[in-house]
């Protein structure tokens, strides 16, 4: 239990959403049954790149139950292109391929039928002639002169090539006695939720409203649907009370939604697209980063890092929405938890003929942390210093916060040494080294992995303006509405979907904390998009900060109004009125009080007892802007990005069977500091789940392609998700360094674990293979690859 000044925050409360989930009574998109709904199945391109020369729908249209067959030409004529993040007008993206298909699995034709099975039958009967085109799969090859162009009109495959120089990089490099360079590859993986993306839409032509239910996690979703369909945004009503079966960033289904919205309007019937797993893996456009880092670090003989050059090359796939911005977000924590004084960063993003990416948990921070932490280990190895010691020498100290990093972001607070000390108090580092050495003596390969990583949180997405100067957005907000009705019951609203983060519990807890009433009496609802205030949605590990902040302030407004009504009714100055657990009393004469029920009664029914000019009722809303927000980048590319920085320190002991190459995680400790934990059960779950994702990305998961551009890991038989056997027991050691910027000192924790686990595991594997002289910097670290490297090193 925590020793806090809080009543409800930070205590071990149940998550109210859990009740419906254990009974199977969630409201997932596939559960939404609209009478007369028609089902969509997709016809996908089998080639890595091809011109679509003809589409024959006749046989398909004859199949019983088939209502319609939609091709890319018709859809392109009836909709606008999907909104992209970068300024790349010659790289248009549409739900169905138009004239050219650019990756194997891209959606070419949509068949609509009375059942999904009939739609699939008809999809098989569509005959499409393709003229295969040259294609490119590798990002470095895509940059070469003479490479096939994924989008001819764009003139090259490069969508982004921007170099930032913060500080005196060349000078610092020249002055440093030591340098080293390494190449680190984050393999193409993603968060792959168990529920695929789904969307159901229905057009009401009498009210001009498109109702949309979707498994969505996306900012400005309703707007983008409206823009593509060329209808007013007030004609799109997204139902936020759909439970999303996991997203972790990727459920951006804008192409699915525009497709289904178009069909719903065209056909005058509800239309439903629930991706099957093959559609999802190949063409759902939910792949994650595939990033190649070239890192150069300049350091001195004590391991102090003076400067760093980082080139990040991203293989975007064939199209891009917001995914290139995943090169920008890490700029806000580009030096990690270290005092590196100057940085050069080149952000490069190219298109290739692979599946399109979307936002993945961490938005690029996980891969960047991998590059940073591999570099720290290699520095230690070069100098023959202990890897933990080298980190200690570079860490930002607790008394140096707020800390301004070269790229212009200020870190709010942190106490990295204490988090590390707590982990080491739990697990003696020297003993761990001895244990590793004992395993080695027993013939195993064994290694210790460390990672010290930041989790930027709060979602101040100024990377948009940084990477696309046409964007001048400096407002990032969230909102909460609070209403106490005439009976005194409390309802709060939140204005987005959730995918397991427990936001209803979050809102109830924060409001309960402010009002000093049981959080469980606070009803939390999700109105639809037409009845909502602005929300940035759960991205950027922002909701505890932002929704928590909005709910907090709305509740404060309620508290203030109740206090003012009471003071007026008691005939005392405002300063003497004390609010306590819903009642208000006179500080000088506590027996003089008004109860919650009385105050509600006055607000609703006794205008004559209200302060002059005060609105009746008890309705409040608060739109909360992101702390430290409101600025745009300087001319030299510096800007404040996310406001709050959580910290995680991973300590892993891993062994590898030298003959089989199979890794086994023997011990896993993680120190985690996300400031005040509004609900510890939720925070723990996030970290554990993030570590599981990280284990997958490090050891098992890859969207592998063959040389023909076919995705060969397209089902769960080949794309390997960690089961309970693959995730070891993890001990989380908590610390709380509150943020000075947030209402309760909370920082985000939605990405915790995932941002550091791959780095820690990669470092452990490298430590294990070091005695054989092997270095491996490519994820995933697959069994066969490890086995082959070990055999080669042993000369077998």
């Amino acid at each position, binding site marked *: 239990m925590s020793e806090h000044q809080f009543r409800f925050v930070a205590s071990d409360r149940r998550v109210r959403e859990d009740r419906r989930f254990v009974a199977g009574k969630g409201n997932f998109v596939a559960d939404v049954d609209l009478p007369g709904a028609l089902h969509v199945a997709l016809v996908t391109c089998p080639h890595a790149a091809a011109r679509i020369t003809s589409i024959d729908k006749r046989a398909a249209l004859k199949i019983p139950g088939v209502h319609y067959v939609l091709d890319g030409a018709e859809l392109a004529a009836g909709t606008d292109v999907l909104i992209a993040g970068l300024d790349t007008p010659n790289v248009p993206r549409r739900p169905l391929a138009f004239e050219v298909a650019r990756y194997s699995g891209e959606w070419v034709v949509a068949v609509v039928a009375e059942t999904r*099975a009939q739609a699939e039958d008809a999809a098989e009967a569509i005959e499409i002639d393709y003229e295969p085109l040259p294609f490119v799969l590798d990002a470095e090859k895509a940059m070469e002169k003479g490479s096939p162009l994924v989008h001819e009109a764009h003139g090259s495959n490069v969508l982004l090539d921007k170099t930032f120089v913060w500080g005196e990089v060349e000078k610092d490099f020249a002055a440093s006695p030591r340098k080293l360079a390494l190449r680190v590859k984050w393999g193409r993986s993603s968060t792959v939720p168990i529920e695929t993306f789904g969307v159901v839409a229905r057009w009401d032509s009498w009210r001009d409203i498109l109702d949309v239910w979707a498994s969505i996690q996306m900012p400005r979703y309703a707007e983008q649907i409206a823009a593509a369909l060329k209808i007013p945004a007030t004609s799109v009503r997204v139902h936020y009370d759909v439970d999303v079966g996991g997203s972790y960033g990727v459920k951006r289904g804008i192409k699915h939604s525009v497709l289904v919205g178009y069909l719903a309007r065209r056909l005058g019937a509800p239309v439903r697209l629930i991706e099957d797993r*093959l559609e999802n893996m190949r063409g759902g456009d939910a792949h994650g980063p595939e990033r190649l880092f070239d890192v150069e670090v300049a350091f001195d003989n004590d391991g102090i890092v003076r400067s760093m050059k980082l080139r990040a090359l991203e293989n975007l796939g064939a199209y891009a929405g917001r995914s290139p911005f995943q090169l920008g977000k890490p700029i806000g924590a580009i030096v990690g938890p270290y005092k590196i004084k100057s940085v050069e960063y080149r952000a490069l993003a190219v298109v290739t003929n692979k599946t399109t990416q979307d936002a993945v948990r961490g938005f690029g921070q996980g891969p960047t942390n991998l590059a940073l932490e591999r570099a720290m280990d290699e520095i230690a190895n070069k100098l023959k210093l202990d890897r933990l010691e080298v980190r200690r020498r570079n860490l930002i100290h607790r008394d140096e916060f707020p800390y301004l990093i070269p790229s212009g972001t200020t870190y709010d607070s942190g106490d990295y040494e204490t988090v590390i000390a707590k982990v080491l108090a739990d697990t003696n580092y020297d003993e761990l080294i001895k244990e590793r050495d004992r395993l080695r003596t027993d013939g195993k390969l064994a290694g210790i992995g460390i990672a010290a990583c930041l989790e930027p949180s709060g979602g101040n997405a100024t990377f948009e303006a940084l990477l696309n100067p046409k964007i001048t957005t400096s407002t990032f907000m969230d909102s909460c509405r609070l209403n106490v009705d005439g009976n005194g019951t409390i309802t709060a609203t939140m204005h987005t979907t959730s995918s397991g983060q427990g936001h209803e519990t979050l809102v109830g807890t924060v409001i309960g904390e402010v009002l000093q009433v049981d959080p469980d009496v606070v009803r939390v609802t999700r109105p639809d998009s037409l009845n909502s205030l602005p929300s940035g949605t759960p991205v950027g590990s922002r909701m505890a900060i932002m929704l928590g902040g909005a709910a907090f302030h709305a509740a404060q407004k309620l508290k203030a109004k109740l206090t003012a009504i009471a003071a007026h009714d008691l005939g005392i100055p405002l300063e003497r009125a004390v609010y306590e657990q819903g009642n208000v009393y006179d500080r000088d004469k506590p027996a003089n009080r008004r109860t919650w029920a009385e105050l509600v009664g006055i607000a609703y029914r006794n205008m004559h007892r209200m302060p002059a000019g005060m609105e009746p009722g008890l309705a409040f809303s608060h739109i909360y802007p992101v702390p430290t927000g409101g600025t745009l980048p300087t001319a030299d590319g510096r800007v404040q990005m996310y406001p709050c920085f959580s910290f995680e320190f991973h300590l892993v002991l891993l062994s590898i069977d030298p003959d089989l190459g199979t890794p086994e995680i023997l011990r896993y400790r993680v120190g985690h500091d996300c400031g005040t934990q509004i609900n510890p059960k939720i925070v723990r779950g996030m970290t554990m789940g993030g570590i599981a994702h990280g284990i997958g990305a490090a050891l098992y998961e890859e969207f592998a392609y063959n040389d023909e551009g076919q995705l060969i890991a397209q089902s769960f038989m*080949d794309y390997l998700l960690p089961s309970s*056997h693959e995730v070891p027991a993890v001990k989380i050691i908590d610390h709380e360094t509150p943020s000075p910027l947030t209402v309760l000192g909370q920082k985000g924790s939605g990405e915790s674990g995932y941002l550091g686990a791959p780095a820690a595991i990669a470092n452990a594997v490298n430590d294990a293979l070091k005695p054989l002289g092997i270095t491996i910097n490519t994820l995933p670290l*697959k069994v*066969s690859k490890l*086995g082959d490297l070990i055999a080669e090193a042993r000369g077998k």
Partner: protein
Amino acid sequence: MKAAPFAYSRPADIDEACALLAADDGARVIAGGQTLVPMMAMRLARPTRLVDIARIASLSYVREDKGGIAIGACTRQCVIERDALVAKRLPLLARAIPFIGHAATRARGTIGGSLAHADPAAELPLIAVTLDATLSYRAGGKTGDIAARDFFTGLMITALPAGACLTGVRFPVWHGEKVGVGFHEVNARRSDFAFVAAAAQVDLDAGGKCRRIAIGIGAATDVPIRLESAERQLTGGALDEKTVSEAVRTALADIEPLDDLHASAAYRRRAAATLAARAIADAKADAHAH
């Protein structure tokens, strides 16, 4: 991922099942469905008719048979897993069964289904080949037997005649005093299809020398194989580590391992040697424990 349309029959007995198979060459047997249904969902298999034999009682049994153990084709893997006769008489089969898929798939999957499907990475074909099992089938009115070593002819191809239905499999029992078994797999995740699997059964004499040994390798090549040269070399010996390692390595020198997304051919060859040696060491220790 909805299957293509098909007709469905649930015959009351094996005769009716065979008649249905004979009447339509697009008809396929379904028992547990754990491998067939995913293939149908992906439309890789498109039978015109499913002949559901899962509930034909005469096809589900575990019994003694001429000194061996006979198991009906429709016997569920979870039943075999719990069977006392199997545990006592077919320890290698008992050892391997928990490695098959997950409890939820063993609840439905049958031994016949796994054998007939002949996935190279499946455990049951490997055990059948290692123990020299005999597979029985019905086709029309006729019955036939095929030795396991002749049954698996290619990647997911068997010697079952067209329209035939597997009815059962008979495993010989080793009756020695000191019989021991070993089974090892390597895969990415614990319950995946193996990259390589090795099964070993040994019979030691009173002095601890190997009287008889069977070594099977699965998942490395397109069909399960026996390491016959190693078996010959190791019979009569003490099964010491060095001799075992050499014998196994020699036997594997000429195989053509599979190469795919999950494991290279070189990896499979090396892992086969490692796992075979470990399986033999386990079998030896197991035999000594008796």
